[in-house]
């Protein structure tokens, strides 16, 4: 046996642990990867073509632990509107060179499912994303004044509908409005609550 082979043999334990150390170093900086993954829209929960129904179950964590929401959503149409619903102001025409596009969605869900607080966005053929502003279109996914239960918070447990509101009907429609510059080709509508999960509805 040569001296060199002896060295490899003598240090075999350390040599074997080198890849493990490398893996540990990589794992210890993985929070950057987690941060990137959780901050973007990276996981498609379900999809449907325009006029088709996406049946979705979205597992997520609320203040009390693991839970889920189950619903159906369909993209009826995208329609340009003359006025944009600016928050705290009278509806007004969008700025020059920009269109107001109403996203007409049809929904179906059990009244006990939590569907408040979603985001709706349009995506064009170059991957650019246009979002419905949450103060201008505060209820993008539930009927106004009948939004159904809220997520638990403070003393409020799961499944509680705010005082004075009737239960959400089993089917309803919404039409959040999105600002899109002229000349963009919209290919998809995205709906999401917690990133990185989203529902994708293609535009035909």
């Amino acid at each position: 046996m040569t001296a060199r082979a002896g060295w490899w043999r003598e240090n075999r334990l350390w040599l074997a642990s080198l890849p493990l150390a490398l893996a540990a170093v990589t794992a210890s900086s993985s929070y950057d990867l987690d941060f990137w993954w959780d901050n973007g829209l990276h996981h498609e929960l379900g999809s449907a073509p325009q006029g088709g129904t996406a049946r979705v179950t979205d597992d997520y964590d609320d203040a009390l632990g693991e839970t889920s929401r189950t619903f159906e959503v369909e993209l009826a149409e995208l329609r340009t509107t003359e006025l944009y619903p600016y928050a705290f102001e009278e509806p007004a025409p969008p700025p020059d060179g920009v269109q107001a596009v109403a996203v007409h969605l049809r929904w179906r869900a059990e009244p006990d499912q939590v569907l408040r607080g979603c985001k709706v966005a349009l995506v064009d053929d170059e991957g650019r994303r246009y979002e419905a502003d949450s103060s201008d279109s505060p209820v993008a996914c539930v009927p106004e004044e009948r939004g159904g239960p809220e997520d638990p918070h403070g003393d409020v447990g799961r499944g509680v509908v705010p005082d004075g509101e009737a239960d959400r009907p089993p089917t309803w429609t919404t039409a959040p409005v999105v600002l899109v510059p002229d000349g963009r080709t919209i290919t998809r509508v995205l709906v999401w609550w917690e990133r990185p999960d989203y529902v994708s509805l293609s535009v035909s």
Partner: protein
Amino acid sequence: MRARRATSTAAILAALAVGNVINTRLDANSPLEPVAEPGGVGEVTHLTYGDVEVTDVRPAEYVASQLGDELASKAGGVYVLVTVTVTATREPTSFLAAYLEDSEGRQYRTSAKAGCAINVRSGTGVPAYAVFCFDVPPDALAGMRFQLSRGNLTFSTLAGDHLADVDLGIDGDDEASWHRTDAVYLAETTSREPIELEAVTLDEVAP
């Protein structure tokens, strides 16, 4: 055997020394520097996530509140009012980090008491307008640059961000005249329409 032990000892000491140098001298823990994209007043600076254009720069002695009965803020040095148009290009974007940087590399923050914008948010392809107000020493005016980027609320750093680095075109003559400015403007924050600064005169308040 002894020579080998001496070699090992020397190697360990050398490794410790190198580790110490890396930790103390190389500043391995400091975040990535942002990537500056140079620009000038009246030209659009294209960033990977948006466009930034400084449309107006002017000095002021006072910035007055939009609420008529509040007192106007006086600069310790000179207020520099930077009017900006931003347009997100990929996705709705908040521009959270607005600074001035002088020719010596010193960084200046927006003045909170002036009541101007502290950040600005733009929808994709939809321009947003903002006025940022900075209180800076008059002798640092020449060569001042305006820097705007997304920033990061979680880590409050500009780590590796693409940053608009706009030369405000202030030369030595401007510095000399801006020093003596007595201009007063109404404070502006952000708007979806272009902003025209409004000059006003102040009423004296009995002390």
